[in-house]
């Protein structure tokens, strides 16, 4: 069997495990549908109280939906190898011949299922409840930008997972650091350009920033106050996707070697 066939099988099997696992405990649907909506509502009422342009309510709904993917990248991807080690699966994954990237891609694919439910419910319920007006001129472009954003963001998650593999609980802080501050820096609920060019440029190192900005422009047109033209953002996102995926493969390989040298692949409770 070729390596490609092996890795596809392995990735799909891991995705299946995550997806089926999620369907066995459906209570998460309640929490993942209702709770994010409360967060979105808080921002919307805040903007309404300030008398902001109604387009900001659309930004909030879009940002709220994309939060699902960002959280999945941080806690369902980056931290996953750490959890696998804690429950005793990691050494079995490491003894297996599949590529570690295939395993993580499977986790990403499986995680997309629950994230997509959360994101779609936030988007649909947000639009319906708060009467958000969307001007989607080019749905294909939106799908393309979303796909590129996912590739880049999940590539980043894979690269982060190698840190978790080595540093365990220390890497936990990195994920915490990347959660709330990134909501602000990446402009989840407002156009990132408002933060100024320097902060926006730094924030753009995280792919979700440009992904969100491009999607805002495709959904709300001129009113989105885009940072860069969509085509430029698409090119940068494509580069980021390639770089992060390469970096993930490289760092996973390096960290695995280091883990074998230091005996960290099998040690729990670090």
């Amino acid at each position, binding site marked *: *069997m070729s390596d490609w*066939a*092996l890795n596809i*099988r*392995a990735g*799909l*099997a*891991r995705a*299946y*495990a995550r997806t*089926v*696992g999620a369907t*066995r*405990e459906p209570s998460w649907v309640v929490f993942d549908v209702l709770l994010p909506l409360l967060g979105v509502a808080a921002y919307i009422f805040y903007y309404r109280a300030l008398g902001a342009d109604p387009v900001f309510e659309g930004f909030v709904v879009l940002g709220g939906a994309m939060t699902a993917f960002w959280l999945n990248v941080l806690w369902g991807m980056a931290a996953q190898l750490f959890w696998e080690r804690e*429950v*005793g*699966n990691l*050494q*079995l*994954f*490491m*003894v*297996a*011949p*599949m590529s570690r990237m295939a*395993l993580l891609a499977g986790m990403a694919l499986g995680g997309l299922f629950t994230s997509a439910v959360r994101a779609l419910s936030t988007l649909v319920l947000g639009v319906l409840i708060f009467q958000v007006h969307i001007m989607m001129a080019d749905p294909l472009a939106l799908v393309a930008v979303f796909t590129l954003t996912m590739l880049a963001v999940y590539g980043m998650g894979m690269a982060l997972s190698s840190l978790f593999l080595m540093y365990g609980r220390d890497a936990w802080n990195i994920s915490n650091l990347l959660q709330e501050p990134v909501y602000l820096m990446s402009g989840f609920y407002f156009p990132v350009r408002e933060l100024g060019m320097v902060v926006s440029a730094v924030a753009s190192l995280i792919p979700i920033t440009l992904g969100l900005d491009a999607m805002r422009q495709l959904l709300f047109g001129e009113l989105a106050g885009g940072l860069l033209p969509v085509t430029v953002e698409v090119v940068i996102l494509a580069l980021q996707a390639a770089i992060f995926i390469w970096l993930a493969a490289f760092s996973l390989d390096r960290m695995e*070697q280091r883990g*074998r*040298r230091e*005996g960290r*692949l*099998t040690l729990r409770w670090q």
Partner: protein
Amino acid sequence: MSSAIEVRSLSRVFSGRKEIVALDDVDLTVEEGELFGLLGPNGAGKTTLIKILCTLLLPSSGTARVLGYDVDSEAKQIRKRINMVSGGEISGYGLLTIRENLWMFTQFYGVQGKVAKQRIDALLEEFGLEDKADVKLRTVSTGQRQKMNIIRGFSTDPDLIFLDEPTLGLDVTTSISIRNYLRRWVREREGRTMMLTTHYMREAEELCDRVAIIDRGRIVAVDTPAGLKRRVGNDSSFLIETTPIDTARLSSLTGVRGLTARPSNGHLKVRMVLEDESVIADVISAVVAAGGKVVGLSKNEPTLEDAFMHLVGRGLE
């Protein structure tokens, strides 16, 4: 016959606050088709050696080749042809059924769907787990979970399998059925090799073609179980049953090679290897001096346990 495992001058040191030498200059060869046992007390280095051979850990020095490949630079080639099962391990996902978990692990080795299904069904039946196949893993007992782990190891049909204390904590009936399967697996499949670590003497004696005795990171002896027992040579093996005493006094007697003591029905059964039969008189005197009363005494044919005591100077427990 070629070698399945070749280990040369292998050492593994764990650094930390205190440096621990887990393996110290180990040399070992396991031939293809062998059921090879690693016997030693907890902390002897058995699991460290297995982890190096499974490519989970790198040696600090020396070399190890598995199925002809170097564990350091050719890990990927090794991984395609081996599998590993650890006793007492917690693996898989509790929300998936036993069958789903097993299927997932076969896919990590690229086993085709139909073949995986056939193998899993056959192994579930073999281990009497077919009625639990579609039950969530989190609801099954420890023994059933361990059976699943063993099935997982064999479901990829490896050329070489590493079993680290596979019957640890299992009841007698389950252990016997697992041992029977292990024996058949090696005998019925030409060229398949098994390396088994255990600290159950009987398991090693019953199953293994050859056994390496490992203690404090060093291989003390490698031989067939019969060969190891012959090493007891002129030493004598005795079993003394006494009222409870502190056995430390007995261990320090001149002529006592080693002993193990186990409580039994309010008494203490002390199995000991002595340099010479005459030493038994001193032992009985020491038991009496320690406030004990000898209630039974027998001389035995040497067992693997006696060989271990003869070589290491103490029992496994």
